[in-house]
């Protein structure tokens, strides 16, 4: 639902690292998305494609690394992947846990094709 504004924010951040001309050389935009970040990957991919259409970034592909939702348990000491959002330790059932991953929503890096200067 709000993937459109997220796609726009991603592009805005990318724009701070490369000039407009250099944006044509961007091949991949690498992002990290936690399982509980509230983002639907398919929808973000669709919105990203829509937002870059007819812009210098139009040859870029959004590459999404998804991060599982994991909790660390203070009772048994284990770090375990859990159902997104469920705070109970899957190993021992304790509620005394911290989220260690799964809420990420980050722009990681971009891959730029330096060599391309007019087709292969």
């Amino acid at each position, binding site marked *: 639902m709000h993937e459109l504004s997220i796609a726009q924010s991603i592009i805005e951040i990318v724009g701070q690292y490369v000039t407009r001309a250099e944006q044509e050389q961007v091949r991949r935009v690498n992002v990290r998305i936690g399982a509980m970040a509230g983002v639907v990957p398919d929808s973000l991919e669709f919105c990203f494609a829509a937002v870059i259409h007819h812009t210098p970034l139009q040859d870029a592909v959004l590459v999404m690394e998804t991060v599982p939702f994991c909790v660390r348990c203070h009772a048994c000491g284990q770090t375990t992947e859990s159902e997104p959002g469920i705070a109970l330790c899957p190993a021992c059932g304790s509620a005394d846990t911290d989220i260690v991953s799964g809420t990420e*929503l980050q722009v*990681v890096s*971009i891959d730029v094709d330096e060599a391309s200067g007019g087709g292969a």
Partner: protein
Amino acid sequence: MSVITIERKVLEKNDEVARQNRELFADHGIFVINMVSSPGAGKTSILERTLETLRDTLKIAVIEGDVQTDLDARRVAKYNVPAVQIVTRGGCHLEANLVREALGSLKLDTIELLVIENVGNLVCPSNYDLGEAVKVVVASTTEGDDKPLKYPAMFRNASVLLINKIDLLPYLPCDLATLKDNALKINPSLTVFETSCTSKQGINAWCEWLMENSRRKPAS
């Protein structure tokens, strides 16, 4: 191919404005709640009951978020409290900068409690910090007892759960204990109130909690 490392949060701009809002609220000693729910869970109704109960005791202001209309702001204005409407024009959530703009039409020095009614949506608002002290999630009994499991992010980020429309429990397949259990599984530190806007059951307990938190001196 060369790689340019970025490593930035996508919503950092919103987070930064939210941080500024939070500072502003602290400077003026305003307790701010961000109310979230599915459409129709009863956010505005709870707010109306809250205003009935507290408007003579506590200085309250309201920011109403809505996709299209100002109907909720009009409902609230009847209680003679300052109310600002934000129309998001299709946007499915409030963002920190919209709240900051709305603050321009409020006299911050005269407010003790600011209630922000977010757009009815249990997914998107969980990503957008507005600068509030607490998120209050409203789940109504008509939505079923598995709501927390379907929208974990919202229940995870909230501090308070209002289980609303408990007057309808006798007619619904919703089990109150299961609903609470599911919510606490997601977030064991939730403070839970059971409310009805028709029978007014639970409204006083909720209002007492609001009083206590609005009047509490910030820890220093």
